[in-house]
Each structure stands twice: as C-alpha cells, then as structure tokens.
C-alpha cells in the first residue's frame, strides 16, 4: 500500500461498484414491471419495456423497434457489464492495457445518455395522449425503476475515475 494513489483508487472504485450494483438490482423491476399502459376505446394494455419494443416490431416499425431495444435494453446492460469489467480489471491490478480500457470507458460514458430515451418517451406520451375515453396513456411504476437504474448507472460511471486505469508512475496521456 505504498502506492500514493491506492487510497483514492480504492475510494473511486468502491463508490462506482456500489452504484453499479444498485443500478443492476434496479434493472430487474425496471424490466419486469409495466412502464406504460395504453387505453384505446375500451381496450387496455400494459407494456413492459420489452413488450413495447416487440409491439413496435409487430407494427412493422422495425427501425424504431431497433432504436428502442438498443437504447432501453441493450445499452443499460452493456454499460453495466462494461463498467463491471473495468472495475474488475482495476481490482485485479495486473498490468492493464490502459489505453484500450480508457477508450472503453469513454465509449461507456457516451452511450449511457441514450438509455434515457424511454423516460422521455413515457413523459411525452403521457403529456400528449390524453383523449379521455378514446385514448389515454398512463405511466406505470416500472418507468420509475428504469429511470433510477439509468440515473444510478450514470452516477456510477461518473464516480469511476479513469485515472485508476493507468499505473501511478506513468504520466497520463495528453
């Protein structure tokens, strides 16, 4: 523990790991609970994130379905898995391919924002589709779980310090 960065290193990874773990737990209700319920002329249906994307696919809106699937299911999972991998790499302390891992971190940081798509979608639909008995969209509890998972993931990424991917003696890349 003579490494002067050891303490900072531990603090940053511990916070990030805790946040990432919480986000992973929140992803479970986010994917199981319904996020939106749509009422159209008497018929009522509740959609989870996955069934919403499937419904778009069934309507023939393949590109849109792919966007929703990527933003709401693929990115949260990929991002948490990637962050977990980075944390394990730092934890193991073996010589790291620092340059490549930093690029992975930058990529994770960039894609994270797009998973907010479903939250904005729910907000917009709730505001617009209020036609009394003909058509009404109501947000359900799943969207809150999903939003908290996304927020926690972003916080975890911010808590993670990419400097920990570099050996303490080596100057940081400019």
């Amino acid at each position, binding site marked *: 523990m003579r490494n002067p960065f050891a303490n900072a290193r531990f603090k940053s990874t511990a916070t990030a790991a805790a946040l990432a773990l919480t986000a992973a737990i929140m992803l479970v209700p986010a994917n199981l609970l319904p996020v939106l319920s749509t009422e*159209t002329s008497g018929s009522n249906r509740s959609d989870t994130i996955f069934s919403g994307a499937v419904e*778009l696919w069934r*309507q023939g*809106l393949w590109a*849109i379905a792919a*966007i*929703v699937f990527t*933003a709401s299911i693929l990115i949260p999972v990929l991002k948490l898995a990637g962050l977990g991998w980075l944390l394990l790499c730092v934890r193991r302390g073996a010589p790291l391919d620092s340059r490549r891992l930093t690029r992975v971190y930058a990529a994770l*940081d960039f894609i994270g*924002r*797009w998973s*907010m*798509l*479903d*939250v*904005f*979608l*729910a*907000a*917009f*639909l*709730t*505001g*617009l*589709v*209020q*036609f*009394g008995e*003909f*058509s009404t969209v*109501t*947000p359900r509890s799943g*969207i*809150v779980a999903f*939003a908290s998972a996304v*927020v926690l993931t*972003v916080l975890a990424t*911010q808590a993670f310090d990419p400097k920990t991917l570099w050996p303490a003696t080596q100057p940081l890349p*400019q």
Partner: protein
Amino acid sequence: MRLGRDASFVLSITGLVLAVPAALLPFVRAGKLGDERISHLFTGVVSLWTGGMRSLAVLVFLCGGLLPLALLCALAILQAPARIRWLTRDRWLLRRAARVIEHWSIPEVQVLAVLVALMKLGSLVDITIGPGFWFYCAMAFSLLFAQRSFDFAPSAPTPAPDGAHAGNPL
C-alpha cells in the same frame, strides 16, 4: 468537427435564443375524433407531476429543459470574448459545474424520443409537428456543436484572460 472558440460562443448564444420559442410555441398537435390537443415542451413534465410521478417529472425537466439551458449559459460565459473582463475573471467553479452538467443535459435524446413517439402514435392519432419542436431541435444541435468544441477537462490551467487565448488546449 471542432469549431473555434468564437464559433462555439456564438452557437451557445444561438442556442439560448432558440430555447425561448422552443419552450413557448406548440410542440406537437394531436387530434383524435375531433378532439384536438396541443402539447408544449413541458406538457409531459406537468402531466407526470400531477399524475404523482414527481421524481420522474423533475428528472425529465432537468435533463431536457433546465440543464441544457444552464450548459448553454455556462458555455457562453466560459467562451466569452476575453475583452469582457468581468465575465472572464474567476471561472474554475463554473468550469467544474459545466463538466458535471454536461453528463445530464441530453436534449438530443429527447428529440429522438419525440420522433419515436410520433412514429408510434402515427396509427393511433393524427399528428402535426409544431414549430416548437423544430426550435428545440435547432437548440439541441447548437448545444451539441458548442459542446464539441469546448474542452471540459483541460490538461493545462486556464490561460490568463489577457486576450492571448489561443483556443482550447488539445
């Protein structure tokens, strides 16, 4: 594409100006069986708030409205011409704030969400896109380009504001 400091400054100001009609003009008009509903930028936030999902309303309001605006302000101040002395004096706090806000200001995601929603609703209701949405799009892209040319993590300390500022490091 990396723009110069002045272009970035002008884009931030442009974004701030565009934000006004984006918030005030109708976003989307939807009609169903003679019933028409006009939605504004914050209609969704208001319905979430009154519907009891307050945390979500706050999140959407921050990420799609307030923080992009704050970031535009911060970028405009941080890249203001060095001649304006009182603006360029002590900005490390603002610079740090901008760095945090940058992660949470995501108007471009909201633009995509609105487009997805419109495609989704196409079969259900009659949709007309209002001018507010286009202003919001323009605002989002101004911010995106202004942001790209700004270095949020300068490797060197900020140069003294004596006019010898040669753009951003990197």
